[in-house]
């Protein structure tokens, strides 16, 4: 089923009496869902774009690439740097803006500008009863009524079928540069990233890969030059620092964004969210086959062999683990919630989708 208008989509939902698997471009197969496919890929197009107001509204099935092209023409961008899951899953297809929002896909710049959910200004969606609902809007400051916009971001299609999203966009930058420190152990790398992120130099990326510990600076040309020098001086005690500019810098962050170091790995791929200073302990407890730290250590991507459930190994470290690419692991995709929180989440899913037809069981 691939309706081409919101009204048709609502009619489809009203008419079905079986579970639905909601798809956009089908490039983010996180978790397993049974059900008849309902695609939003037929709802396409940018409905409104005001560069002077930093806002863009698009139909949920619009390819992310189309939106990025429209923004680039006005020297703007999606600042939260949505990751592209295709490499990780080894599949083709066209990522859509709706799928990006439904998975709250956010990249390295999340540490500086926030996640996808922080840039989502409004949504329209079809609820489980087939009604069209709107929340939020197209303006940057809006506290009118409950914020269902945040709730819809990252809800993986379990609350409704998003038909239109409204996003805050930001200016493209004139220049970027990346400082790379080589040979740091995880604990040292996290410490270096914390120092950089705690500096006034507006670091917009802090990641550790096998290639080193990378720190990104962006902005006007002269300003980047100034801050590269200032940050180098500040981080001198951590050892040699190489500086990559322009396209070389861009390439480093494209790989971090898309988790490229784990593309060719075998095993399950987990995404772990903890406070940065807990990252070394998590990695030591789990000993993954391969890993990547982003968000200054707050986001850990891991390839883990043998179907091991890593959650018990986090012990009492606060945070959560999501099973993004499942090879042999058998546990739930999403981190189990404490009973009182799970009761709230279940209650919401039941209210939004009383028949339990949207991606049933995906998040529960």
């Amino acid at each position, binding site marked *: 089923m691939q309706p081409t208008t919101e009204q048709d989509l609502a009619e489809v939902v009203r008419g079905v009496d079986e579970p639905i698997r909601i798809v956009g471009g089908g490039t983010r197969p996180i978790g397993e869902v049974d059900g008849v496919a309902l695609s939003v890929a037929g709802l396409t197009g940018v409905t409104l774009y005001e560069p*002077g107001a930093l806002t863009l509204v698009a139909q949920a099935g619009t390819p992310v690439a189309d939106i990025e092209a429209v923004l680039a023409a006005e020297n703007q961008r999606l600042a939260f740097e949505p990751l592209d899951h295709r490499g990780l899953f080894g599949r083709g297809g066209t990522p859509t803006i709706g799928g990006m929002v439904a998975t709250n896909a956010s990249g390295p710049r999340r540490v500086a500008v926030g996640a996808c959910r922080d840039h989502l200004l409004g949504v329209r969606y079809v609820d489980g009863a087939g009604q069209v609902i709107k929340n939020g809007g*197209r303006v940057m*400051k809006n*506290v009118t009524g409950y914020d269902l916009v945040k709730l819809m971001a990252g809800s993986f299609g379990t609350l409704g079928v998003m038909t239109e999203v409204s996003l805050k966009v930001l*200016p493209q930058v004139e220049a970027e540069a990346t400082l790379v420190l080589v040979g740091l152990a995880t604990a040292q790398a996290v410490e270096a990233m*914390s120092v950089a992120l705690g500096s006034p130099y507006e670091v917009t990326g802090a990641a550790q890969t096998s290639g080193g510990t990378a720190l990104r600076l962006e902005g006007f040309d002269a300003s980047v030059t100034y801050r590269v020098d200032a940050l180098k001086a500040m981080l001198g005690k951590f050892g040699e620092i190489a500086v990559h500019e322009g396209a070389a810098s861009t390439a480093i962050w494209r790989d971090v964004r898309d988790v490229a170091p784990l593309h060719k790995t075998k095993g399950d791929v987990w995404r772990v969210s903890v406070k940065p200073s807990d990252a070394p302990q998590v990695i030591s407890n789990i000993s993954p086959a391969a890993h990547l730290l982003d968000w200054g250590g707050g986001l850990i991507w891991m390839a883990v062999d043998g179907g091991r459930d890593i959650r018990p190994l986090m012990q009492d470290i606060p945070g959560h683990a999501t099973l993004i690419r499942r090879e042999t692991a058998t546990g739930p995709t999403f981190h189990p919630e404490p009973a009182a929180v799970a009761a709230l989440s279940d209650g919401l899913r039941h209210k939004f989708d009383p028949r339990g037809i949207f991606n049933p069981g995906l998040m529960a």
Partner: protein
Amino acid sequence: MDMPSPDARVMAKKARVIERLQSVLPTDAVIHDPAETRAYECDALTAYRCPPLCAVLPSNTDEVAAVLRICHEEEVPVVPRGSGTSLAGGALPTADCVILGVARLNAVLETDYPNRIIRVQSGRTNLSVTGAVEEDGFFYAPDPSSQLACAIAGNIAMNSGGAHCLKYGVTTNNLLGVKMVQMDGTIVDLGGAHMDAPGLDLLGLICGSEGQLGVVTEATLRILPKPEGARPVLIAFDDNAVAGACVADIIKAGVLPVAIEFMDRLCIETTEAFAQAGYPDCNALLIVEVEGSDAEIDHQLDLISTIAARHDPVEIRQSRSAEESARIWLGRKSAFGAIGQISDYMCLDGTIPVSALPEVLSRIGELTEQYGLRVGNVFHAGDGNMHPLILYDANKPGDLELCEAMGADILRLCVNVGGCLTGEHGVGIEKRDLMTSQFSTEDLEAQMVVKDVFDPKWLLNPAKVFPLASSQSRRHGG
């Protein structure tokens, strides 16, 4: 503005409710003497007042839970209160409610610079959060203008913003976790020191829910390193529309100022008479502030001045020092006080797409003629958040009602041009009955079912946010 009549069943058991609350709280934490409960009869929307049944001031999460369990069992409405600075009547009591004040929950529980977080009890004031970390070079970004007094609990309830949110976002973008007590006394932790939610983003839902889903007792907040410096440029224009066009051009040029503030002639003249900031004689004034090192600031201010120069400004005044910056900000920061010196006023809070600014200002001008009331416009221009101040005379019979009617017209105008009723103050009682101009019945129902999940008996702050007619069948006591 109507409020529901008090529930006679609750009024009849006042003595028992107070006795039960006294059994779980220290003596001085239950306030029921009518002379003392009057202190809680209103918030900063002072036109509406009603003393509560009683007020309680718990000192920790367990005491909050004990209070809520009792009120849940007795089916007594509870109105949570931060510092009582809401301009929307978010903490306005009803005669049959218990005011739950978080003022005694004011401790800093943890500061963690490597992870850039602070964990505080929710009654702590906004400015004192920054106060706890500024010596170490950090700050808490959301800066509502009431920040000296307003509590983090209220900031979370209203998802408060401030002048600097163009760059740093509002409360929801800087909130990482809460400890919250549900109406039935259940304590839940949502989020934490990590940066995203494990499942559904319940934290994002709590922020801005106006104290209707739970009582937040602790919050984990993001703190940021202080910038090296900040300086503004003042740009004066003869025409509102040109000022609006200049804002759009600055943003399109790729500069992201930390704040862009707008004032119209009435505000400029009034603040000039009050504070003598030395503002130029003009119809519209922008204050644009940028951050960074001295050289970075100069570069950005030069760029902004170059753009502004293309719009035939009356004057461009670039700050070169902290002293000059203070003078440029002096008038803007005195604006509300200055207007308050000459008249009673009602402060609106609608947001519009920036492109609609000229149209909206000219329509407000027409409404001024129609209602015979004057309006001053102060405005966060970068993000479209307007603060029209409608001047009226509280002692003149009918003037408040006239002012409210005009305010409603202005807010409907904001919605009609693609904006919303409230950008940072919240709905409270003030905009409650206008919600139907922005939302369909289905849209409102989708929000009200959320409250059904968190507070099935609709006891928490029940007569707010939703039009009374829409929520009537759910609320206790009608």
